[in-house]
C-alpha cells in the first residue's frame, strides 16, 4: 500500500501547489487567453445566433431557433456549403497531392534546383490571400491577362475560358488559385515527415525493384499517415474558412454560385444586417468543422501513432 502511494502520480492540485510559477504562466495564463480570444467569441456567436439583430440598435430580439429553421430552407446556404465541400475536395486532390509529390521529389533528389523549388513553392504560403487574389485577377483578366495570352501563344488558345464569368468554372478557378497558394503547406509538412521515414525502407524497396511511383504510394504514403492526418485537418479548416479570395476576386458572382459559407456570413451580417443569421451560419461552419475533424481523428489518426 505504501508502495502504491509512493508511485502514484501527483494530482493536478498537488502539482500546482508545488510549482506555482509554472502553473500560472504555463497553464492558467494560456487558458485565460484561450478563453478570452477563442472561447468567448464562440459562446457569444452561439448566443447571438438565437437572436435577430441588425448590428446597430442596442436591442436584440430573441427568436429561438428561427435562424436555423430559415437556414435549412435557404438555397444560398446549400450552394455555399456544397461550394465549401467542393473546395475541400479540390484542395485535397490538387495542392495536397502536389505538395506530397514535390516533397518526395525533393527527398529522393530527383528534382533539379531543390532549394529554389522549395522556396518558390513555399513563398505563396507567406503571402496574404488578398494580394494573391489581386494578382490572379490581373493574370486571368479576359482582356489583357497574361494567362490567356500565354495559352494562345503556345497554340492552346482553344482552352481559353471565361475564368470568372462562367458559373460552371468560376468556383474551380478560385480553388485552383487558392491551391496554388496552399501547395507549400503540405509540401513542408510532407518534406519534414519524409525525413522521419526510415531511409532503409526506401533502399529495401529500391533493391526489390520498386520505382518512384511505387515507393511513393506503397512505402512513403502508408508510413506518412500521421502527417497526412495533420495535413487533412489543416486542409479542412483552410477550405471551410475560405473567404479572402472570394471577397477579392468574385464577391460570390456570378449569381451567388461562388459563395462559400465564410462569405455568406459576411454578406448576411454586414450587407443584409442580419447578424443573428450570420452567427447561425458561423455555427454551421463550426459544426461542419467539428464533424469532419472527428471523422479524421476516427479514421486517419486512428492507430497512426502506434507503429
Amino acid at each position, binding site marked *: 500500500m505504501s508502495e502504491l502511494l509512493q508511485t502514484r502520480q501527483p494530482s493536478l492540485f498537488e502539482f500546482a501547489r508545488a510549482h506555482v510559477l509554472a502553473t500560472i504562466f504555463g497553464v492558467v495564463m494560456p487558458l485565460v487567453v484561450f478563453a478570452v480570444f477563442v472561447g468567448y467569441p464562440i459562446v457569444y456567436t452561439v448566443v447571438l445566433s438565437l437572436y435577430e439583430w441588425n448590428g446597430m440598435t442596442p436591442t436584440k430580439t430573441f427568436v429561438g431557433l428561427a435562424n436555423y429553421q430559415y437556414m435549412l430552407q435557404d438555397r444560398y446556404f446549400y450552394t455555399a456549403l456544397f461550394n465549401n465541400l467542393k473546395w475541400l475536395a479540390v484542395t485535397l486532390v490538387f495542392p495536397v497531392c502536389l505538395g506530397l509529390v514535390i516533397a518526395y521529389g525533393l527527398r529522393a533528389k530527383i528534382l533539379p534546383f531543390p532549394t529554389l523549388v522549395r522556396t518558390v513553392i513555399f513563398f505563396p504560403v507567406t503571402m496574404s490571400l488578398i494580394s494573391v487574389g489581386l494578382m490572379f485577377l490581373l493574370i486571368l483578366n479576359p482582356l489583357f491577362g497574361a494567362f490567356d495570352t500565354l495559352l494562345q501563344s503556345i497554340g492552346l488558345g482553344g482552352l481559353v475560358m471565361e475564368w470568372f464569368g462562367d458559373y460552371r468554372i468560376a468556383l474551380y478557378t478560385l480553388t485552383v488559385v487558392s491551391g496554388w497558394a496552399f501547395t507549400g503547406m503540405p509540401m513542408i509538412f510532407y518534406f519534414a515527415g519524409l525525413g522521419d521515414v526510415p531511409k*532503409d525502407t526506401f533502399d529495401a*524497396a*529500391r533493391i526489390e525493384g520498386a520505382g518512384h511511383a511505387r515507393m511513393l504510394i506503397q512505402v512513403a504514403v502508408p508510413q506518412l499517415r500521421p502527417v497526412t492526418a495533420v495535413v487533412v485537418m489543416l486542409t479542412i479548416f483552410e477550405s471551410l474558412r475560405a473567404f479572402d479570395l472570394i471577397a477579392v476576386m468574385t464577391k460570390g458572382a456570378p449569381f451567388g454560385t461562388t459563395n462559400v459559407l465564410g462569405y455568406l456570413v459576411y454578406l448576411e451580417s454586414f450587407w443584409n444586417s442580419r447578424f443573428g443569421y450570420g452567427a447561425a451560419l458561423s455555427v454551421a461552419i463550426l459544426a461542419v468543422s467539428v464533424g469532419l475533424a472527428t471523422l479524421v481523428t476516427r479514421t486517419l489518426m486512428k492507430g497512426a501513432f502506434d507503429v
Partner: protein
Amino acid sequence: MAQVSLTNIVKRYGAHVVVPNLDLEIADGEFVVLVGPSGCGKTTTLQMIAGLESISGGTLRIGGRDVTHLPAKDRDIAMVFQSYALFPHMTVRDNVNFGLRIRRTPAQKMEHIVADVAERLQIAAYLDRLPRALSGGQRQRVALARALVRRPGVFLMDEPLSNLDAKLRVEARSFLSKMHHELGITTVYVTHDQSEAMTMGTRIVVMKDGIIQQAAPPLEVYRRPANKFVAGFIGSPSMNFLEFVFDGAALVRANTAVRLELPEAQRCMLRAAGQSRITLGVRPEHLILQPREVSESGTIGFQIDVCQHLGNETLLDLAEGAFRAIARVHPEEDASEGERRQFRIDMERAHFFHVDTGENLSLAPQRNGG
C-alpha cells in the same frame, strides 16, 4: 549464382575520399566478410555493390556483366539491412513477396515460393502478422526471407545480426552459415564483429580507411596477418604487441636483463629484414605461464593485475613498466592477482612487425644482406 568483381573502385563525397582504390574478386558461391573498424567504408562498399550509392570510379561486375551504372533492381542482388528495413504497414507475407509482386509473379507460384521460404526460415506461423508484432529474431528472419524469395545472384548483408542479443546472434550465425552451405549463393557480409567474421566467412576482407589490408581465409588471416593492424583486429582478446631490439641473435630490451633467444629460422629472417627495432606480436595463448621455481633466463616477467576467470579459460591482465599484455591460461592454472610471474613466449608462433610501417616482416619479401 554470380561472381562479383570490383576493379579500381573509388568512392568520393565531394573532395572527401572514402574508398581510394579498391580491388576485390569474389568467386561464385563465396561467403566474403568485410570487417574493419567503424567508419572504414564497409557499408559504403556494400552500398556501391548494391547500387544504393553511386560509384565514383572503377568498374563493378556481377556475374560477368558490367553493372557499374545499372540501377539496383537490375543487378540481381538482394540485401538484408541492419535495421531489417521491413515495411511496417505490410503483413509479413506482403513484406516477403514485395519483390515478387513487382515482378508480376503468378499468384500460385508466388504462394508456393513464399510458403517454401517461410517454412525454411520458420516464419510460416506469422505470415499474416505485422512486423511490429514480431520479436527481433523473427523480424530478422523475415528480412532474410524477403531477400531469399527472389533467388538473387548475390546476397548483400550489412550487420544483419547486430540488433540481436548475444544468444540469438550465435544461433543466427550458424543458421546463416547453414543456409549458405545449402544454397551456395554468393554472399558479401559486412560486420565489425571479428568473431562473426572468423566463424562465417570463407574469406575475410579486413579494411581500414577504405583500403583492403588483407583478404584471405579466416585461419590464414589469424595465423599469418599481413600487418600489425590486421593482427590486432582479428582475434579476441587481441594480440599483444611488445617492442624489442634485435641484437643479431636475440631480442633484448634496453636497461633490462630480458633476453629472448630466437630460433634459427627467425634469426635469419630478422637479419634479412635488416631491422634492429621490431614490434613483437604474441597472441594471448602464446604467452605461457611458467612454474614459480623456473629461473628467469629466456623468459619475461609480468605483474598479474587482474585474473578474469571465464570458466573454460582464464585471462590474465599483465603489466610490466609501460608494457601491457593479456595471457590466456588454463583455468586450473595456479595464478593469483598481484603476483609477479615469468612467462615464456612461443617464438615459433610469434609475429614480427616493422616498428613504423607495421608490415609483417616474416611475410615480407626477403631482402639480401644482414
